[in-house]
């Protein structure tokens, strides 16, 4: 703190020492005539003398005797040096910077792109604004190197996963920090009963740019929150001049990219009866014939999926008058999901206002208010009413409706919890409910208000020194609702239930930023930033659940007096962060760059002795192309720069009180209690991540082609690990939070931008990005593997690699599954492979004798400790995107392809589709072994009722289910036409573009599941790469227009 004051005093003291002699004044504008406010004017010969332009772009300066030349500069524009030549008035037009001269938002400030030393990807808001999707996040996928975005479900409210430069923690958070207009935002899924993506609150049309900070140099300034990278989002601002009005609309239709391939009625009956027959039981399945002689056949997927209409509208007005500029907007989205129970509606309002109070003080108020209403089905992978779990099991030989049941749906008249049995002798396995009834009658909603805003005061203390104080609030206020109908489904047992929960999460963030930027001798450029930041988040919820409801009529809300059983619950948690940080940037003539930063963070989630962490960062860059010896090359290599950085960052995403040994609430029937709930660890300290990054930027032929390349290493040490403990010790949740664990990642990133063709009216720009990410676990608690159902964390392997058995296939002689088992030496190396066959009849494994395949004599277990091995990486090892923009006269065409690969997926859904219970199956089951003469596909064993656990072994991964997850996806094709301005004059419009586009059009993959990106399990404590009854992805075909005047 003292340092800040000291700097202030020194700077205050140094002002006002110049001796005036002659004044000069003038106006600075951009090429379009817009005045530039706050542009710098300094005297070249005495850089301590200078001023900035006022709101009218005017400046006035008293010149010292030595003054001969003025330097005019403005962020994002090219600086100009102008000889005074005795003039009293000099007006200047500054031109906008070249390609490399873009302004890039960085942590706590902005820099010219050519001066940025860190690894930052920028995506312009317009690139994604017109794409129909539930949130902008989905559309960032494939658009920048090193940033992997995985859309894991076609359910509209689900939050995509964002991984910047791989996975950097084992038990703690892996998602990046998102900062919106300087305020760290709440991200992730905020819905309780149905997913609601917090970032879906942001209207994509309001976004000016996204900057993705990847390496240490760029992220170190965010210190403890930077381990997973940072995404900075800047919303639009008004520009001085006449008001402009923009209207965007698009309208589209969404359909499932792919659905499950299920059995029809006839195959179903054959397969089910074979299950029974092989188990020695009486067949139960029968085709049902209607009175008119037709056979009942129901395509359940056709009933529960649909093609949904989706529309977005966005209106904005922006401009600037006098000292004030403004941007106000309204957005409305109404999206129907491809699941009949899924929809999303969003209303968003934004108002960004900035005003120059006087020559030195600017005030700004940015606020966004969003209402998001999500409805969705139950999607639990293993819930009897889960939409995929249920749908793939619904019997195809019964009707969905039945007038004999009071509800009109086909519900079993004997077992009212179950789908009706039709002509079958039994109900569906586990008596699961009619999925259509569930989706159309049970309702799950997450309705939220989001308030995201900040207010700031910015004072120009001198021409070099400015101070900004900003307070930001991010609040999500979520109302969750679930109604479960009394007549059928999950609400049947409780005679109807309604749960309502209110979950407010409020985060405030206060920053004081002091920025000092100066140039001297016209060659040394120095920038210093000092920041204080405090943040506190409070999250709470309270929930009421009522059961035994008097009448299904009362289903919109909990109504007093309509229920017999009231229940309540709630919780309250907080966390906070106090930080001080400083950064120094220096460059010499735009040739040599040095930058260093240091941040001190104090985090409430750690024990008092370990709360404080220090996070340093440093970087350099060397623009070789500025050297004089480069002169001859400059026609070809217009820009060449080397850069590198090193930093330490941390991870605050470790839960709120992980170190506290504590007793949580523990109700026993009607008796209040508390019980041991967390194993305390006072020694818990910061996760420390060391980031190294080396790269170069290359511009060819006047930057017609640019190439950026980077190699990065992220060494994550002292990772907080939920180290598993032996369950027989009875430690709560069977883990201890410990700082033991080290994971190292590295990768290469390449971005190539090229103007491929520029001939007259025809232009073709192309951009390719390609990234690799590798990852290795270096250290674990006592070297001990951490094994979850399908994954392993093992030293020397990639994090949470898939882990399971080697499946050999089906014994053609008897239909039994064959696996490899091993003998191992003392250090675990395989010394011998012995095949075993699992005898389905008595559920015992025997050594497989190829000479006599039906021999069942030597028992040898398939042993999960001994016989499993690593089956592949669960994380893609490479990914990227290929973006092409063509234009011809008024037409523009965009073709965007992205790809990802190198990973394996545990296709757990496939095991479900081959279930041995009385329910529907995937068509793969038709390849089952039937007899030695008819051995099927060699992979699918003999059927046997209820022997899933033995026949399919779905509790463990095996090479039978683990598949290659590589894919190439034609993500977007859009064709637009911009109507020439001349024709718009009559309509008084300044711009009109109409377009059609298709998203998610084609996917090329060998993966046999519903989609290689569909994933149901990604929590850091569970596993990666598991696809277990995931929801299909949507394909959207839409058309739209953008008009402005």
């Amino acid at each position, binding site marked *: *703190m003292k340092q800040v004051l000291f700097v202030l005093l020194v700077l205050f003291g140094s*002002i*006002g020492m110049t001796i005036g002699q002659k004044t000069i004044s003038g106006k600075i504008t951009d090429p379009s005539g817009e005045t530039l406010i706050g542009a710098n004017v300094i005297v070249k010969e005495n850089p301590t003398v200078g001023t900035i332009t006022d709101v009218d772009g005017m400046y006035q300066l008293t010149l010292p005797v030595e003054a001969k030349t003025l330097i005019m500069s403005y962020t994002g524009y090219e600086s100009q040096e102008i000889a005074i030549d005795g003039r009293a008035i000099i007006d200047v037009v500054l031109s906008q910077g070249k390609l490399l001269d873009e302004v890039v938002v960085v942590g706590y400030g902005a820099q010219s792109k050519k001066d940025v030393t860190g690894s930052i990807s920028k995506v312009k808001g317009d690139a994604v604004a017109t794409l129909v999707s539930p949130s902008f996040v989905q559309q960032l996928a494939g658009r920048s190197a090193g940033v992997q975005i995985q859309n894991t479900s076609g359910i509209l409210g689900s939050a995509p996963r964002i991984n910047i430069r791989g996975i950097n923690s084992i038990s703690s958070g892996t998602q990046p920090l998102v900062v919106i207009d300087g305020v760290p935002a709440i991200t992730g899924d905020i819905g309780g009963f149905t997913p609601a993506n917090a970032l879906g609150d942001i209207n994509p049309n309001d976004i000016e740019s996204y900057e993705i900070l990847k390496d240490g140099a760029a992220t170190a300034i965010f210190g403890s929150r930077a381990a997973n990278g940072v995404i900075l989002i800047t919303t639009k601002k008004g520009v001085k001049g006449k008001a402009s009005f923009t209207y965007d609309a698009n309208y589209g239709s969404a359909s499932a990219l792919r659905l499950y391939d299920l059995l029809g009625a006839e195959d179903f009956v054959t397969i089910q009866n074979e299950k029974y027959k092989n*188990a*020695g*039981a*009486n067949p139960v399945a029968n085709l049902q014939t209607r009175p008119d002689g037709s056979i009942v056949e129901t395509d359940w997927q056709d009933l529960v999926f649909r093609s949904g209409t989706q529309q977005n509208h966005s209106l904005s007005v922006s401009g600037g008058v006098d000292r004030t500029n403004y941007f106000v907007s309204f957005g409305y989205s109404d999206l129907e999901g491809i699941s009949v129970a899924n929809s999303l509606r969003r209303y968003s309002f934004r108002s960004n206002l900035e005003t120059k109070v006087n020559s*030195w003080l600017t005030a700004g108020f940015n606020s966004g208010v969003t209402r998001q209403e999500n409805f969705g089905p139950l999607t639990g992978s293993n819930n009897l009413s889960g939409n995929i779990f249920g749908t793939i099991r619904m019997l195809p030989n019964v009707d969905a409706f039945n007038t004999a049941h009071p509800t009109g749906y086909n519900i079993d008249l*004997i077992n*009212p*919890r179950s789908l009706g049995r039709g002509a079958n002798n*039994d*109900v569906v*396995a*586990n*008596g699961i409910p009619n999925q259509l009834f569930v989706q159309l009658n049970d309702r799950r909603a997450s309705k939220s208000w989001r308030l995201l805003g900040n207010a700031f005061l910015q004072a120009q*203390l001198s021409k070099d020194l400015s101070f900004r104080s900003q307070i930001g609030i991010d609040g999500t206020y979520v109302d969750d609702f679930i109604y479960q109908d009394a007549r059928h489904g999950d609400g*049947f*047992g*409780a005679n109807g239930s309604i749960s309502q929960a209110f979950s407010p999460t409020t985060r405030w963030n206060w920053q004081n930023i002091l920025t000092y930027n100066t140039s001297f001798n016209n060659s040394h450029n120095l920038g210093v930033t000092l920041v204080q930041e405090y943040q*506190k988040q409070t999250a709470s919820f309270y929930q009421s659940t009522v059961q035994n409801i008097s009448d299904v009529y009362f289903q919109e809300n909990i109504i007093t007096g309509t229920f*017999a059983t009231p*229940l309540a619950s709630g919780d309250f948690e*907080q966390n*906070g962060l*106090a930080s001080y940080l400083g950064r120094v940037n220096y460059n010499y003539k735009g040739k040599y760059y040095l930058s260093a930063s240091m941040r001190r963070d104090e*985090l*409430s989630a750690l024990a008092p002795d370990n709360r404080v962490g220090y996070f340093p960062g440093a970087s350099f860059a060397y623009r070789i192309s500025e050297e004089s010896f480069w002169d001859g090359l400059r026609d070809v290599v217009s820009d060449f720069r080397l850069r590198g950085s090193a930093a330490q960052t941390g991870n605050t995403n470790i839960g709120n009180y992980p170190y*506290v*040994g*504590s*007793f949580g*609430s523990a*109700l*026993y*029937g*009607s008796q209040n209690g*508390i*019980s041991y709930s967390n*194993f*305390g660890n006072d020694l818990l300290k910061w996760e420390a991540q060391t980031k190294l990054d080396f790269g170069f930027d290359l511009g060819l032929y006047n930057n017609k082609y640019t190439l950026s390349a980077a190699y990065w290493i992220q060494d994550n040490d002292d990772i907080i690990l939920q180290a*598993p403990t032996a*369950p*027989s*010790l*009875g430690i709560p949740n069977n883990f*201890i939070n410990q700082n033991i664990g080290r994971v190292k990642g590295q990768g290469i990133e390449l971005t190539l931008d090229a103007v491929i063709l520029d001939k007259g009216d025809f232009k073709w720009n192309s951009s390719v990005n390609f990234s690799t990410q590798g990852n290795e676990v270096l250290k674990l608690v006592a070297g*001990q593997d951490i*094994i979850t*159902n399908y994954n392993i964390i093992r030293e020397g392997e990639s994090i949470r690699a898939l882990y399971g058995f080697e499946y050999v296939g089906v014994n053609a002689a008897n239909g039994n599954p064959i696996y490899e088992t091993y003998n191992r030496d003392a250090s675990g190396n395989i010394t011998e492979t012995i095949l075993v066959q699992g005898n389905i009849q008595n*559920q015992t494994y025997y050594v497989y004798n190829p000479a006599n395949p039906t021999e069942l004599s030597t028992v040898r*277990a398939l042993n999960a*400790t001994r016989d499993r091995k690593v089956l592949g990486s669960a994380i893609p090892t490479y990914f990227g995107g290929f973006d092409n923009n063509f234009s011809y006269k008024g037409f523009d065409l965009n073709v965007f392809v992205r790809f990802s690969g190198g990973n394996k997926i545990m296709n757990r859904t496939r095991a479900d589709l081959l279930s041995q219970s009385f329910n529907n199956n995937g068509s793969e089951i038709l390849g089952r072994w039937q007899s030695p003469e008819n051995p099927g596909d060699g992979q699918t064993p003999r059927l046997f009722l209820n*022997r*899933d*656990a*033995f026949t399919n072994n779905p*509790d*463990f991964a095996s090479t039978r289910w683990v598949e290659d997850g590589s894919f190439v996806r034609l993500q977007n094709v859009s064709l637009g036409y911009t109507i020439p301005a001349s024709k718009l004059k009559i309509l008084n419009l300044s711009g009109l573009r109409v377009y059609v586009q298709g998203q998610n059009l084609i996917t090329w993959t060998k993966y046999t599941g519903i989609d290689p990106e569909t994933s149901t399990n990604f929590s850091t404590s*569970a596993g990666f790469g598991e696809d277990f009854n995931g929801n299909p992805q949507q394909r959207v075909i839409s058309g739209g227009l953008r008009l402005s005047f």
Partner: protein
Amino acid sequence: MKTFNIQNRILSIFFLTFFLTFMSCEKEVTELEPVDRITEALAFSTPARVELSMVGVYDAAQSGFYAGGAVRGYPFGAANVQQGDMRGEDMLNVAAFYAITYEANYNTASANNVFMWHTLYNTINKANIIIEGVASAVSSGVLTEAKAKEYEAEARFLRALSHHELLIHFARPYKHTADGSHLGVPYRTVAVNTAAKLEAEVVKGRNTVAECYNLLLEDLNFAEANLPATRTGVLKVTRATTAAASALKSRVMLHKGDWAGVIAAGDKITGYSLTASPDGIFTNNSGNTESIFSIENSANDNPGVNGSLPNMYGVAPGRALIAISPIMFNIPSWLQNDLRRTLLISEAGNGFFTKKYTRVATQEDFNPILRYAEVLLNSAEAHARNGNTAKALELLNLVRNRAVTNAADQFGAASFANAKDLLNAILFERRIEFLAEGRRWADIHRLGLDPDFNTGGIPSKVAFGNTTKASWGFGLNYANGQYTGSRTIISRPYEDFRFLWPIPQDELNTNEVLRGQQNPGY
């Protein structure tokens, strides 16, 4: 430039005020104590908190976590009953839900056996933490010595109950070796709440079964001596009492084959009597004369729709996933006019179900863990084994005649040719009386090597897929006391490795000692 100077002065005052405000902010954002949990240091700081912590151990016994987050009544909220029944042949698995247990198809990762292990040991550690906590509360003057002993007794009762449940699933019965020297389970008596204790405990392997029984009885003797004789209100049934300790001791002695011990434990219990009607304890869970110890469930806190007894066993609106097997339902020696047939069975479209748990909408049925009828039948068996057939018959009739009210059907001394016949009747009476209460597996287990009454391991069972409503009928498919209907779920002889559950894979992954002590065959 002069204007700058004036501005600066104003500003510097402005900023100084800002900074000072902020300095006081720092503590407010970083020194945050949880408000939704009590820190370890405070859990035993007042008598009221000690009481809350004690209740917390019962909570662990009632609603441990299944598969990460769901509460399905593990271990004693409901799951011990379901697993105990599904391992036997008298109840019938209707759906795929319990198929793995029912068909003995478990592996080291199958959820039922894994979470039984997890939640039982979780209960045990919480009990050990109470024992350690009350000792510290005595030394800090929060509790009297006497009160501390009472809490310790409660904790040791729950510790014994949990270890015994582990023994019947994960270890061979006491009689497997002459001296009980075969592997039991690790008997944990140390509170594991620090890194040091963790390291010391994890190297302790499985105790022998004899050691386990000695420790069980030590715990129960302490509990018997220090628990209150009775409690008031709902606590009389839902919290441990002297009688609960004695009743559990009677059960443990029975498993050990210490007949005198069974009788002695049973004789200590006073103040309890059978309810007038066989459904008495089910219609009134907390206010009856027979329940000695039950796990409490309430509308607010219960094993949920996928675990609660009324949902799993009850007909619609229950989920009716466990039926009474025709093996038991059809058996003619369970007399047709037995009140337990008329009062405690309900009929559904696809079979017959128990009516012991009926509160489907609220799921608040208590889980009966120990009741007086069991004590009587334990003693009856012990007397019969010791040759005191008269006393044995008297005790058997106490239980049986409540339901078999027709004098002509009641047993007299002449009903049995010898003690073996009488014992057969006593053992059969247990199957009827405790049907759908999860006791079947415990009996199959302890009788595994009994020369006269063993069931030949896990008996073969009826597959629901082979039944229709017509498969149920009194006397149907019975000849010479044997069920002749199809029993396609094959039997597993006592010697089969599946007679025992495997130690879970995650235990093997994290515990080097137990990795070498897995039950053979897995």
